């Protein structure tokens, strides 16, 4: 376990229970139970199409997903009943796998409006941005660029991490944080997130295909997601094991399982938002 929060903020808890969700009529998540507390780093690992990105999108409230059952709460607040922006206000942050380019809109405007909407102090947003940029080696000249426009994959992920640093969420979901990142950037970004677990008690749910990320961002718990279910859980050693053996064992187990429970009505399990390049 990482250092427990040093500040006086009460510990937070993201609680996912029995979460089931579909996209375009296809069931992707089939009963997820997971609790992330302040200061903890959880990794959810799984092969392509297992539902990793769907899990992050459903929690963050991206349109296009249908929740079939279950609950997601943050400190008792029912996130699933809130629009996306109110989930952020409740303390959730999503670092996207492919951060969207928004022409003509600056990072400073977005952070200012976010803090304003949350009724939080927004003085010195610029100074905080500059300070955060310094901590993760994000070139200051990118701060005045339109959001994510003409940024490389690595710069976009540093930009996501900078926002996390300024907004100081209770819980962050990192969707394939390592995609598009070189080794140096991966280290900078991971270090900042680990610091946040200590400084502000950030709880982290890191979703990743490869264990590469987990060499830098050391998890306390590792969960294996296969076909919309968490099929195994362990400590950091589970990530090491997966690096050597891959997911084949779990996929085979699950296939047997599916045969045994044939007729359960599951549809296709492809995640249309999965990273096909991963």
């Amino acid at each position, binding site marked *: 376990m990482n250092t427990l929060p040093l500040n006086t903020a009460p510990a937070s808890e993201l609680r996912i229970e029995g979460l089931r969700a579909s996209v375009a009529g296809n069931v992707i998540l089939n009963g997820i139970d997971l609790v992330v507390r302040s200061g903890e780093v959880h990794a959810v690992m799984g092969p392509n199409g297992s539902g990793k990105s769907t899990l992050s999108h459903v929690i963050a409230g991206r349109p296009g997903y249908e929740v079939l059952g279950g609950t997601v709460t943050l400190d008792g607040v029912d996130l699933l009943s809130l629009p996306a*922006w109110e989930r952020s206000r409740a303390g959730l942050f999503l670092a*996207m796998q492919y951060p969207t380019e928004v022409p003509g809109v600056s990072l400073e405007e977005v952070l200012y*409006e976010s803090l304003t909407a949350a009724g939080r102090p927004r003085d010195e947003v610029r100074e905080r941005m500059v300070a955060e940029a310094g901590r993760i080696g994000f070139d200051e000249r990118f701060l005045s660029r339109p959001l994510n426009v003409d940024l490389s994959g690595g710069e976009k992920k540093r930009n996501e991490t900078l926002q996390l640093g300024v907004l100081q969420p209770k819980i962050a979901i990192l969707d394939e944080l390592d995609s598009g990142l070189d080794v140096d950037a991966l280290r900078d970004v991971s270090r900042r997130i680990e610091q946040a677990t200590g400084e502000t008690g950030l709880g982290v749910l890191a979703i990743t295909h490869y264990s590469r990320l987990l060499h830098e961002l050391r998890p306390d718990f590792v969960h294996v997601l296969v076909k919309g279910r968490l099929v195994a859980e362990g400590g950091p050693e589970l990530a090491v094991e997966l690096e050597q053996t891959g997911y084949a064992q779990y996929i085979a187990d699950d296939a047997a399982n599916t045969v045994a429970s044939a007729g359960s009505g599951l549809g296709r399990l492809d995640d249309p938002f999965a990273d096909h390049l991963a």
Partner: protein
Amino acid sequence: MIPLSTMNPDRAAALGGPDWLQQRRVAAAERAAASSLPSTDEEVWRYSRIADLDLSRFSFGAIDAAAGVPEGLQALLDAVPDRAGLVVVRDGRIVHSELEPRWAAKGVVLGDLSAAEGAEGILGSVAGEATDLFGQLNDAFSADPVLVRVPPGVTVEGPMVVAHWTETPSIAVLPRLVVQAGADAEVRVLDIQASPDGVEVLVVPFVELDAGSAARLHYCNLQVLGDRTWQIASQSSTVAAQATLRSFTGAFGGEYARLRTDCRLAGQGSTGDLYAAYFGTGDQTLDFRTFQDHAAADTTSTLLFKGAVDDRSRSVYTGLIQVRPNARGTNAFQTNRNVKLSPDAWAESVPNLQIENNDVHCSHASTVGPIDEDQRFYLESRGVPPEVAERLIVSGFFDDVLAGVSVPFAESIMRDLLDVALGRAPQVAG
């Protein structure tokens, strides 16, 4: 034949001025009397609301314009300090004219066109003979044509402002503005068309822009007409060798507001940049027709028109790039993008190319669509409420085109007007 009512040669003649101008007006009024309203069967009027226009509802010819600078223009004029000169045209009549002495001393002209040296040859020198009823009506009934003239080699610092205000109910006002930039001259003109809400008027502004060789002519049209104003506007330009025209139109008002833009790249190596930002709200229709005419070698035209339509408003864009047989080495670009902010809003976009030379580089693009869902979710996932996210995205959508405003202070006015349209700030004008 159109109903005569007040559109008769006698009333055209009664507008006064020098003999040549009176004769020109009478001849044009006679031609207008023999003309017909165009119809939507003509390609350039397709999708327009021309069939809804009843000219007999409007009074043409002399009226007694109120004196002085109208209060309704004051906020806009205050937003453009450090002017090189100002002309105010109220109900078609020049009511105020000033030019900084240092520019007058250099031979710069700003004001009544009919009083200028060589006036007789100026009207129509760019636009040519009127090609439709509205051109004829402008020739016949333009009460006080305005001239901006910068002699060769002179660079005028600070904007020259020509501000039009039309307020008397049921009148037709037909402003004419000619801008002449001599060889290697530079000028920046802000042309404002404004009227109060709730007053039914017709404005038919014709603008002629003449960029002499190696001149830099910057022209910005700001259209903030009232919600019951009809506008049928025309902007013609001719760009001589190595000269640059930069034209920007900001269109925000009017019940039906149409602008036809004709840019003729007449001299080798000339450049024409045509930009527009428009925002439709309520039930208004904004209608744009553009013609990029490459008539010489090594010419470049860049057109970027971007608009938003909200509520039940409509926008029309049709454009044509024409490359003449001798215009080798042409670079021509035409882009029209529209964002629909309401399910009841409507936008039509029809780009066209007509190319008669093989050695050219041309492209055109057009889009009509709602706000990008991924952009909206991205901002919302950062904690930005939906209405704020929409405002930021739409405001950002206009960012690149607003960068094309080259007349001082006009960009910040445009941004304020966009904020008004996006429901963020109080009204600036009208």
